[in-house]
């Protein structure tokens, strides 16, 4: 299988095939034989690559969107793993994404403690528009796009669930 794998902003093309416990992994043209065994559960792997031993974790998070995670030597990585189909979907969505509205959603359940914008306000990328409190911590939620606020769906003091739409911003 051919995968387009993006970690930390760098994309690699990996071809993976399998023979028993050994995975043949071609990384940008370099071939590795990876002896990979589940280690206690299916998300953990004991890898032996050319006699080097690694205990890593890797698992799908939202596989239908290509979202995976990996943990190597205590460090967490958000990894995007796309196959040909998902690449096509992503490219199509990207084409749409550069126009239209961006909706800021609550990343976790919590309390809205501050709404810093009103409809009509102009915001820039990374500008904090809502402050939420969850688990005793205040968190500033920023717009991912530059544009004009078209609607504000919450008010200060509102309790919201995860993924509740908070503010809609029309790209410009």
């Amino acid at each position: 299988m051919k995968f387009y794998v993006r970690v930390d902003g760098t994309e690699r093309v990996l071809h993976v095939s399998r023979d028993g416990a050994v995975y043949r992994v071609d990384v940008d043209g370099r071939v590795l034989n990876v002896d990979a065994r589940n280690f206690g559960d299916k998300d953990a792997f004991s890898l032996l690559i050319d006699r080097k031993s690694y205990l890593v974790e890797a698992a799908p998070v939202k596989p239908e969107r290509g979202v995976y995670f990996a943990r190597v030597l205590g460090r967490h990585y958000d990894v995007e793993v796309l196959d040909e189909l998902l690449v096509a979907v992503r490219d199509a969505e990207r084409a749409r994404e550069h126009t239209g509205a961006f909706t800021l959603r609550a990343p976790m359940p919590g309390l809205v403690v501050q709404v810093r914008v009103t409809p009509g306000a102009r915001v820039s990328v990374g500008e904090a528009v809502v402050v939420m409190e969850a688990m005793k911590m205040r968190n500033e939620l920023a717009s991912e796009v530059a544009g004009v606020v078209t609607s504000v769906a919450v008010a200060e003091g509102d309790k919201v669930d995860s993924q509740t739409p908070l503010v809609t911003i029309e790209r410009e």
Partner: protein
Amino acid sequence: MFAKILIANRGEIAVRVARACKEMGITPVAIYSDADRTALHVAHAYEAYRVGGPESRESYLNIPNILAACRESGAEAVHPGYGFLAENADFAQACADAGVAFIGPSANAIRAMGNKLAARAAMKKAGVPTVPGSDVPVTDAREAARLAREIGYPVLLKAAAGGGGKGMRVVRTDAEFEAALKLTTGEAKAAFGDASVYIEKFIERPKHIEIQVMADAHGNVVTYGERECSMQRRYQKVIEEAPSPIVTPQMRASLSDAARKAAIAVGYTGAGTVEFIVDSERRFFFLEMNTRLQVEHPVTEMVYGVDLVKQQIEVAGGAALTVQQSDVVPRGHAIEMRVYAEDPAHGFLPSIGTIKRLVLPQGPGVRNENGVYEGYEIPIYYDPMLGKLVVYADTREDAIQRARRALREYRCEPVRTNVDFLLWALNEPAFVDGSYDTKHIEAHFDPSQLHQRDEEVELAAIAAAIAAFDYRSTVRYATLDESKDGAWRRAARADATKRWSR
């Protein structure tokens, strides 16, 4: 000694206290909110009482319900842990009035240290160095600015009723004063119900060093050296260690002497911590006294071979301290790391959900103090600290190496933790050489630094590709596509100019 103790807290500290009780042959009684029926601290107790709804004010801050649980259980004492009601003088008083021993200082001692301005005055009187500043609340901006010039800018405006980094504002010029004073008094009134603010010299890039105190009701006071807690983010301690890499035996003696004076000045009993701020010339000034057990007490326990919780309980039961100050000798080095369910790569947003896999570091010199377990669903109502990882070794260098080794063994999934952030902090040259200060993280941390070695990044790519391969070998898109957000549906929805090759 007590036969039964009610633990008025939750999370790792409630588990810590329950373990101490069990080891002392005392029955630990838990309280729990509706969100905490299956919390770890309930399972570690021998009895458990529901005290209210999931919000803290309905349960863990609900004094009448907690006292009712004391009565019903027949608990003879209450351990407040830290946070919640631990520094609430009214609660201490209510316990005393109900004939239940409060495992902590008297309500008066809590009050004496609770008001920062009153505490400053008491400390000055006791001969404890305090930060240059005003002795009374400031109300007039012009007068305040005059005082600020006298002390020297920049200065800090602080709420008298504040603490722990809350209710403060830096002022750098006369011009800023009027607005700053108005804002700070307003916030102080709103947050603490007391508008009093005062001025202190602002110390840039200070170190935070604190002394552990233990006092009994018979006039004996013992100090257990210092902890350095300068690795902070937004005034929250992240990593603590004992001893401090910059404290010499002479400085330790001076700090300990000051802390002892502070405790005696307020008639302190039980475990307490005197916090000092240390400037770049290694001068130290009284910051505040925490009138309870600290989160970071384990580093002191490991270096001094003492169990502070057991000692707290003994002292509250009326026992005299048997340890002599001359017997208090440090050995080795300990480092505590606070492990949070948060995402350091994305603004430290709290991470919630169910912990499906929890593998804690083990082996020599590793101590885990946790409030969670495998299969536990992290509630949204409380602090996102999962627990503390504490390491001990012969030397500071070995302890740092051990801390790194232990963090790499940590596994908590799929909840995102700050383990990689802790690894970053331990690798910072200023941490390694001991020169770090409380502004270090703010000044130096950037999420792009979380990943360091190309080899590891490539391994992450390989591991994820193998996971994707396994996933794709067992799950078909046909199945996927039945989901609301299946790939085919999205492909169809999108006005896809299909590009099958790249």
